[in-house]
């Protein structure tokens, strides 16, 4: 599909917009619909579009598989780490109030970190699954 100029040019224009929209959905999940899962899926969709138009080889060059494996685990460690941090600070597991000077700021920080972890892992897992399927019969 990379020989088709229309697809190539439109993909190059629209993939950054998709990634930017994913970041918007991630960080505005507190004030409107959104959050980690939706943002992770949209972020991965940008990369999948790149892989569809330019080939799985180009996608592999853009994202090395070792980095993908690391990022899959990073989000889960971030989420569980927030819980461990609150325990180390003296409170219960995942009690966000202990993270900052007062309850509401602690909740904001905790929810921000937790949703970030979710978004990171979901996007990495979806890109990994797509690469595993699409690259199965590569020569």
């Amino acid at each position: 599909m990379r020989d088709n100029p229309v697809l190539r040019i439109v993909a190059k224009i629209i993939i950054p917009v998709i990634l930017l929209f994913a970041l918007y959905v991630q960080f505005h999940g507190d004030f409107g619909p959104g959050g980690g899962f939706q943002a992770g899926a949209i972020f991965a969709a940008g990369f999948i579009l790149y892989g569809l138009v330019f080939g799985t080889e180009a996608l592999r060059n853009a994202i090395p598989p070792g980095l993908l494996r690391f990022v899959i685990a990073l989000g889960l460690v971030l989420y569980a780490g927030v819980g461990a941090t609150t325990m180390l600070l003296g409170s219960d597991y995942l009690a966000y109030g202990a993270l900052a000077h007062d309850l509401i700021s602690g909740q904001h920080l905790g929810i921000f970190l937790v949703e970030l972890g979710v978004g990171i892992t979901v996007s990495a897992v979806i890109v990994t699954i797509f690469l595993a399927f699409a690259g199965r019969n590569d020569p």
Partner: protein
Amino acid sequence: MNVAGLYNYWIVILLMMTGFYVVISSGNLVKKIIGLNLFQASVFILYISMGKVVNGAVPILREGVTTYSNPLPHVLILTAIVVGVATTALGLALVVRIREAYGSVEEDDIHRQDESL
């Protein structure tokens, strides 16, 4: 969906049974997984329609709104949707490996090859 109180639940049950029928009656493994996803999507519609409140608003708090729709089913179904796609991905990966091992994804072919061993 105020059609006489319970009708929309029955239509959603019809959709669920259609998905269920695809799962149990098709021999092709990929079509079984697609039917499972149809079944799951209709179960989600059933749960979300139980959370709606008459004249309720979207459960995002703002000024001047008193009744909100129930947010709890939304949270549960959000989790369920994501778990569903994870299951689908694993199931499809298994189907690809079965195709490489047996040469076909039709149930009858696979049973025949297993019995002839």
